[in-house]
């Protein structure tokens, strides 16, 4: 994500001999973008904030100021509470898996052979598919009786498997789908990072008779630690906003066990037509995201102190 400190330094720091004058027409360079930025990003952000204090019917258009009522209802809403918990759970299920599995694949495939290249291609391929295709694929995998999983486990005598209908396992099943979909990115980032470790360090370790485990733990991991942090933060931010998989695979069920915060916002706004209420939920999510972005900023500053 953003590295605010570094980039602002980049903008202001260059004090070389600059072109002395600028003409006001040159503002037209940034004008097109600024129009879209303000009209379609900044303004809606403010509007959403205002809407969160209103009763706003999505289609009748009338808006009524109701103060904090949306927020009061939100925080006492059992379903919303469940959605927050589910979202945190989902992040916990997916992010460590992304890091660990991504790293392991990168370690295994960090070589110049043709088969390693083929497998790298394979693992990244799912990344280019849209969420609707991915969910079609995995619904076909998870279908009760007819699905791949049901057929496979049926050979081992496990019958009646309906994993998306089981409130104890549905979220994990969606997590597996998500990891299948997105493992390509962590893998590629780890590969790039591994390839930046100079070969001589490994040579030196070999000469010292270090075991593979020692090599991994004392050389590889510290060298790629920055990437581990980067992947973690990227995935936390992405998975907090999970929507498509839930919307298409379980719609938040069964028994509110998979409803994510964005799914909640979508339902409240576009299915139940209570757009003010949905805006309030969106503000809460936004605050969480800002905290996460702040965390990334803080973490990236810290890594510069290495």
């Amino acid at each position, binding site marked *: 994500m953003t590295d605010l400190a570094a980039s602002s330094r980049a903008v202001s720091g260059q004090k070389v001999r600059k*072109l002395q004058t*600028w003409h006001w027409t040159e503002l037209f*360079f940034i004008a097109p973008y600024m129009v879209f*930025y303000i009209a379609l990003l900044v303004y809606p952000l403010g509007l959403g904030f205002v809407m969160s204090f209103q009763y706003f019917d999505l289609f009748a258009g009338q808006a009524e100021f109701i103060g904090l009522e949306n927020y009061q209802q939100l925080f006492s809403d059992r379903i919303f509470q469940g959605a927050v918990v589910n979202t945190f759970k989902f992040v916990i299920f997916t992010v460590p898996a992304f890091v660990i599995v991504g790293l392991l694949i990168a370690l295994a495939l960090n070589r110049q052979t043709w088969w390693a290249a083929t497998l790298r291609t394979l693992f990244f391929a799912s990344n280019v598919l849209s969420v609707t295709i991915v969910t079609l694929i995995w619904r076909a995998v998870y279908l009760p009786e007819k699905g791949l999983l*049901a057929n496979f486990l049926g050979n081992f005598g496990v019958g009646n498997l309906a994993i998306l209908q089981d409130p104890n396992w549905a979220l994990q099943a969606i997590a597996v789908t998500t990891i299948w979909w997105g493992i390509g*990115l962590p893998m590629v980032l780890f590969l790039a990072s591994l390839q930046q470790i100079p070969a001589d360090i490994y040579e030196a370790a070999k000469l010292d008779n270090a075991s593979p485990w020692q090599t991994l733990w004392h050389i590889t991991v510290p060298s790629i630690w920055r990437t581990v942090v980067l992947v973690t933060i990227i995935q936390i931010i992405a998975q907090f906003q999970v929507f498509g998989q839930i919307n298409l695979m379980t719609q938040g069920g069964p028994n509110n066990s998979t409803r994510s915060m964005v799914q909640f916002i979508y339902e409240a706004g576009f299915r139940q037509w209570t757009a003010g209420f949905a805006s309030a939920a969106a503000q809460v999510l936004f605050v969480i995201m800002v905290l996460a972005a702040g965390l990334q900023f803080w973490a990236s500053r810290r890594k510069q102190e290495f």
Partner: protein
Amino acid sequence: MATRKMSKPMGEQILVASVVILAIAWMVPLVWIVGLSLKSSLELVVDPNSVFSFPYTLKNYADLMVTSNLGIWLRNTLIVTITQTVLVVAISCLAGYGFARVEFPGRNVVFILVLMGLAIPQHAVIVPLHKMFNDWQMHNTFQALILPGLSGPFGVFLMTAYFRAIPIEIEEAAKLDNASRFRIFWEVTLPLAVPAMATLGIFTFLSAWNDYLWPLISATRPDMYTLTVGLAATQTNIDQSEGLGYLMAQAVFAGLPMLILYIFFQKYVVRAVAGAAIR
């Protein structure tokens, strides 16, 4: 680059073997849906295990040609994605150059404000955006699908950093010829930024092609559906819709363009996505 070891230690062999097995498992879902797409839907209802046995049929794909609106969805997605990509690259280059070179007062402040926009997730603005386009009566248009994508700061950030890194001496030389700022930009600087433009273009193309949430609520008329929305709509009743086999054929068909593009342009796609993430 990892060193080439003379003998492969046990741990590493286990790791590699596990990853190879994992890769096979990774592929199985894709094979599965191809298998399902080759079976008649009726047969799939009656016999859950029928995928493993003959007969197979191409009827689902034949039906796709007649019934499916894949063509319309594909056309809409192409229009939106190509237009958005072109516009994002153009606007980001302009803005990037402006922030890099034009030293108007308050530039740093404005730039930081733009960067802060990176922290705004799509969902924080989707409800108010929907209201705005409602008021302008602009839903179910290509403009509605394209325009919101132009407000993201990522492209600007990327191009600004890139332009900043281009030594200013190159432009100073041109300035001596009394060229306008825009001419310098157009003829001197921009050609140097092609790699970054390619990265931005690919990244934007991919994310526009796969966008789901905004088209879902904005393109509500069937002939405006994009590929993602169309596929999602036909999925909602997977139990009672045209049939499982047909749906799988649709998924296979819809996923092919991107997969083919990816296989041919793999290096660029990977570089774009990874480069974007690192920023």
